[in-house]
């Protein structure tokens, strides 16, 4: 059902937890659907210096969260905004079709966390602004 990479990230997830006083928070999903994900980030010099996740969900939800944090760590905010569900799924060696939608929310969680950061830290003209 799941690729080895998914099972690897499910059994040994990376970056689990919550950053204290985070620069940005992104929460997606809802418990009624069975999946909730919260991503917290620390931003330094326009880069993601630290990132952690907490996820309620199936193996796919946990694995996508874990790999998304790995993919985003150290990236600039612009690069991190380019991480999509599709790339997350590819990085995991594919996901079962029924898991592509609800359980693959981490990229959105990451984008929300970045948007949250940008909203709280408006840049001077010429820099990044929140949308």
């Amino acid at each position, binding site marked *: 059902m799941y690729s080895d990479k998914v099972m690897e990230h499910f059994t040994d997830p990376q970056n689990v937890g919550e950053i204290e006083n985070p620069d940005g928070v992104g929460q997606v999903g809802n*418990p*009624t659907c069975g999946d909730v994900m919260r991503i917290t980030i620390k931003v330094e010099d326009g880069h993601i210096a630290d990132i952690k996740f907490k996820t309620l969900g199936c193996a796919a939800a946990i694995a996508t969260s874990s790999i998304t944090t790995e993919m985003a760590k150290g990236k600039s905010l612009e690069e991190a905004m380019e991480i999509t569900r599709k790339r997350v799924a590819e990085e995991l060696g594919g996901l079962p079709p029924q898991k592509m939608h609800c359980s693959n929310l981490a990229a959105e969680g990451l984008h929300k966390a970045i948007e949250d950061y940008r909203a709280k830290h408006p840049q001077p003209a010429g820099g990044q602004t929140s949308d």
Partner: protein
Amino acid sequence: MRTVYMDHSATTPVRPEVVEAMLPYFTEQFGNASSVHHLGQRARAAVDEARDIVAAHLNARPEEIVFTSGGTESDNHAIRGVAAAGRGRHVITSAVEHHAVLNTCKALEKEGFEVTVLPVDENGLVDPQELRGALRPGTVLVSIMMANNEVGTIQPIRELAEVTAESGAVFHTDAVQAAGKMPVDVEELGVDLLSLSAHKFYGPKGVGVLYIRAGTRIRPMQVGGHHEHGRRAGTENVPGIVGMARALELACAEMDEEAQRLKRLREHLQKGLTGRLEDVQLNGHPEQRLPHLLNLTFAYVEGESMLLSLDAVGVCVSTGSACTSGTLEPSHVLTAMGVRPELAHGSLRFSLGRMNTEDDVEYVLEKFPPIVRRLREMSPTTREASA
């Protein structure tokens, strides 16, 4: 790695005695039961004997037993066969049926039948008075399962069948989960049709029974040759039928003792888990329930992640039902019982069986609580957050 199989409601291993009974019918005794020569006649004799055994254990007559390819076919045959033969266009079922019943009723709905789906209470029970209110002159069939496959709740079939009989409609019960776990006596129950599946009671997969009370208005669904007195065409699965009869015989002989044993193991598991973990809730009727089945909700965790974590330490269980495992929808059974979706997603079914021991239960009690704690630590939802 140690394997602890606690998914007996999904399927069971075939007992060695059953395999032994079946083996000759694959090889030396391979005859077609419709053939006139001696090999055919031996196969015929084996099928007849199996029919007698099955009939005796259900308190039915041999000519009321039709062999099928399993529970799904029996359910389809019962519902579609009565719908095709009846004089009305209304069918009643319950919200907690197996998909073999629910989806057959849905298919009838598309074909112009009216279907009433009776609700259940928080324990999963259908109320006979509710059924009485739903029956009407055009009702041809009522199909309500004997015991539920996800939570184990046992329905008051006798009462439901009685209410149905007053209206003249045909009563079918899916006894797939009940057989071998509790007495199934068609006279006692007063049912017209009853489905069984061998692989749930240590028989082979792909063989089952539809009991058809003499005089019931029902059409054959699979047509062809004159097999099964024209009620179900197709060369008989002789080894499967022989194996099923042997399996039923063994299960019934050991039933009382085994049911007590399984119940003790289950109570131990239930007490152990609820004692070691917070926010655990039982799904299903507290008493009126199959002896081997335990469905629990663990708040703030999701079922599949518990299932896969247990699998990693060799423990096989399921979330709700095997069929539900492939989808993201919460179980229709739990939803019908009023379990909130976020809790339904966190449910797990343990179904015990012959090979399980106290030791297995201890193993699960040792391995499982840390899994739930780990997943809860990972979860952004907490008791405080959802208060």
